[in-house]
C-alpha cells in the first residue's frame, strides 16, 4: 500500500532553515527585498516551479515508489499592482502553488524570484523580509483564525513577529486602524473569532494580511467559503484595498465569474500545469486551449434563453491521477482534438505559431498543439 507522506523537510518546519549564507549576502538580500518596485514591473517571477510529494512504501525502510506531481513545472509573472487570477478544478495544484509562494512548502525544483531574489533558497532574515512583503489570505475563515486568541491578538501578533513594523506602544492603535480599514468596528478588538460572522472573519483575515503592509497578497480561494451576497462585499473590499495600498494579488479560485471580476490577467491550470494564460478578455472571450473552452462552457448563464442556445462542451472521464499523469499533453485523455502528436510531444506554454505576431486577442500563451480560438461564452 502506498501512502502519501510529506517530505521530512515539511514535517519539521523551521528546523531545516539553517542559515548558511554569510552575513553580507544576507544583508544585500534584505536590502533588495525591501527596495521599492515600480508599477507595471514584474514583482514575482515563477520559473519552472515543481512540487512532487513522494509516495513511499514500507514501514521501517521507506522506499519511494513514485510521486504525486502536484505542481509540475509552471511559470508565470506577477506584475506590481495587478491581479493575476489562477483558476482550475479541485486538485489541479492551485493551493500548492500558493503554499510554495509562501514558502510553507519547499519546492522540489524551480525558482520563484521576488525582486531578483530566489525565495525558494532564502532562509533566516532574508526569508523573514520576504514574509513581510508577501502575505496570504486563507480560504476558510472558520479555521484560519486561532479560536483562543482575540482579534487584537491575532492581528497584533504580526507586530510581535516583525517588531520593526510598529513600535510597542503603537500596536493597539494600529490594530484598530486595520479593523477600520477592512470595515469592522475598531471596538471589536477584544472579541474572539467565534463572535463574528463568516464575512467578518474573512475581513479579520484580510486585516492580518495587510498588517505588515505587504506588496503581494496571495489569496487562496478567499471567498469560496462565504455566502454569495457576502462574497461580493469581500471582493469589493479587496479591490478597494488594492487601489488604496497598491497591492498585487495572486487570486486563486475556482469560481470563474469572480476571477473575471477581480483579475487583470488569468491563468488556467490543469493537473499541475498551466494550460493557458492571458488577460481576462483574452481568456474569457478568446480562449484557445480546449480545456479553457470546456471550463468556460460550464459557467452558469443567468439568462435561460441564452442558455438554451449556447454550446456545452461535456468532458468525458475523470481527471487522471497526478501520481501517474498522461504522457505528452496532460489534457489529451479528455480532449476531443487529441491526436498522436499529443501523446508523444508535450505542448509548451507559448503563443501559438499561427497567432504569432498577429494583433488578435487570441495571440496569448496557450499550451496546445491545436490551439484555435472559440468563443464559448457568447456562442449563439
Amino acid at each position, binding site marked *: 500500500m502506498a501512502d502519501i507522506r510529506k517530505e521530512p523537510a515539511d514535517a519539521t518546519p523551521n528546523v531545516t532553515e539553517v542559515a548558511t549564507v554569510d552575513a553580507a549576502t544576507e544583508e544585500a538580500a534584505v536590502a533588495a527585498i525591501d527596495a521599492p518596485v515600480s508599477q507595471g514591473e514584474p514583482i514575482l517571477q515563477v520559473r519552472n516551479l515543481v512540487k512532487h510529494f513522494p509516495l513511499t512504501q514500507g514501514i521501517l525502510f521507506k522506499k519511494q515508489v513514485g510521486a504525486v506531481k502536484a505542481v509540475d513545472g509552471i511559470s508565470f509573472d506577477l506584475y506590481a499592482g495587478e491581479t493575476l487570477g489562477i483558476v482550475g478544478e479541485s486538485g489541479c495544484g492551485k493551493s500548492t502553488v500558493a503554499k510554495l509562494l509562501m514558502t510553507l512548502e519547499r519546492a522540489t525544483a524551480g525558482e520563484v524570484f521576488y525582486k531578483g531574489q530566489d525565495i525558494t533558497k532564502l532562509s533566516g532574515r532574508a526569508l523573514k523580509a520576504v514574509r513581510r512583503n508577501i502575505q496570504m489570505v486563507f480560504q476558510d475563515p472558520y479555521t*484560519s483564525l486561532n479560536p483562543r486568541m482575540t482579534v487584537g491578538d491575532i492581528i497584533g501578533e504580526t507586530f510581535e513577529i516583525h517588531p520593526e513594523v510598529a513600535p510597542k506602544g503603537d500596536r493597539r492603535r494600529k490594530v484598530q486602524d486595520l479593523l477600520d480599514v477592512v470595515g469592522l468596528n475598531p471596538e471589536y478588538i477584544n472579541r474572539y473569532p467565534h463572535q463574528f460572522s463568516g464575512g467578518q472573519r474573512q475581513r479579520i483575515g484580510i486585516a492580518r494580511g495587510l498588517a505588515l503592509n505587504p506588496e503581494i497578497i496571495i489569496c487562496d480561494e478567499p471567498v469560496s467559503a462565504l455566502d454569495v451576497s457576502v462574497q461580493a462585499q469581500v471582493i469589493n473590499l479587496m479591490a478597494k484595498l488594492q487601489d488604496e495600498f497598491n497591492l498585487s494579488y495572486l487570486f486563486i479560485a475556482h469560481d470563474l465569474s469572480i476571477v473575471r471580476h477581480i483579475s487583470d490577467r488569468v491563468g488556467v491550470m490543469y493537473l499541475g500545469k498551466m494550460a493557458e494564460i492571458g488577460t481576462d478578455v483574452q481568456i474569457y472571450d478568446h480562449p484557445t486551449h480546449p480545456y479553457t473552452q470546456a471550463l468556460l462552457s460550464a459557467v452558469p448563464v443567468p439568462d435561460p434563453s441564452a442558455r438554451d442556445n449556447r454550446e456545452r462542451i461535456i468532458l468525458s472521464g475523470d481527471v487522471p491521477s497526478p501520481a501517474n499523469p498522461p504522457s505528452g499533453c496532460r489534457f489529451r485523455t479528455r480532449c476531443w482534438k487529441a491526436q498522436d502528436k499529443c501523446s508523444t510531444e508535450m505542448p509548451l506554454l507559448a503563443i501559438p505559431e499561427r497567432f504569432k505576431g498577429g494583433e488578435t486577442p487570441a495571440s496569448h500563451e496557450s499550451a496546445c498543439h491545436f490551439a484555435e480560438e472559440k468563443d464559448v461564452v457568447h456562442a449563439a
Partner: protein
Amino acid sequence: MPDVTKTAPAPEKAEAPLAGPQVDVSAEKARSLWGDAWQDLRRNWYFIISAALIVLLLVIAAVPGLFTSASPTVGDLAHHFLSKPELGKVGSPEWLGYDGQGRSVYARVIYGTRASVIVGISVTLLVTLFGGLIGMLAGYFGGWVDAVLSGFTNVFLGLPFLLGAMVVLQAFTDRTVLVVIFALAFLGWTQIARVMRGAVITVKQADFVQAARALGAGTSRILFRHILPNVLAPVIVVATISLGVYISAEATLSYLGLGLASPTVSWGMDISGGASQIRVAQHILIYPSIMLSITVLAFIMLGEAVRNALDPKTR
C-alpha cells in the same frame, strides 16, 4: 431569478452588536484567555462547590491537627469497636467510632487525606508534564521523532498499569509516598501522551497554524501560543479524571498491601482494613470510602468546569 439585491444584508459595519456579552468593549481592558475563563468560573456553581471542597481537602492535608486533637496512630484497645460501639458528638475523636485497634476513625480519615491528595496531585502533575511533552513533540515534529516517541509510549502502554506499579513497588523495601508517586507516574503518562499527540496532529494542520508560519513565527511561538491553548481542553479533562484514578490506584495498592505502609496513614489502607470487618463494623470501611469518593468527584467536577471555561465556543 430572484432579486438578490433586496435580500442582501446591510454593510456589516452598520450591523448591531453581535451576540455575546453585551458590554462596552471599548472601555474594557484586553483580557487574556485565562482572565475570561476566570470571569466565567467565578459564576459557575460546579466550580465554586468543587473548588471549596478541594481547598478544604488541601487545608486538611496541610494541617490535619486543626481538625482533630486525636492521634491517628495511637490506639487504646479499651476503645475497640466491639467494646465501645456508640458514637460521640461531631468533631470529637469518638465521632465516627473506633477501629479494631482502638484508633479514632475520624482522626484516621483526617490524617489519611494528606497521602491521598499528595499522591493524586503529584502523579497528575508529573504525568501531564512528561506525557504532554512527549505527545506534543511526537505530534508536532512527526517523522522519525514521532516514530521513536510513539514506539516508546507503546512499550509503556503495553504494561498493565496496576501490575506494573506492583512490580516497581516490589523493588523498594521502603515504600514512602515518593516511591508510590514514582510507581504510578512511571506507567501513567502514556494516556496523556497519546491524547496530546492526537490533538496536536489535528491542530497543527489548521489554517491558523499555517497562517502563523506564513507570518514567520518560530517553532516555540507556534507550539505555545497556537497549538498548546487549542489542545489543552482534552488534556485537562483526561488529567482531572485520571487524578481521581491515581487516588484510587493508591488506595488499591495500599489495599493489596503494596502501597503505602504503616505508620503512614492513608484511606486505601483503612479501606483495606475495613473491608475485612465489613460484617461487624461497617463504619471503618464507609467513612474513608466516602472521603475518597468526594475527593475524586471534586477533582472531576473541577476539571469539567475549567474545561468549559477555557473553551470560548461554549461561552
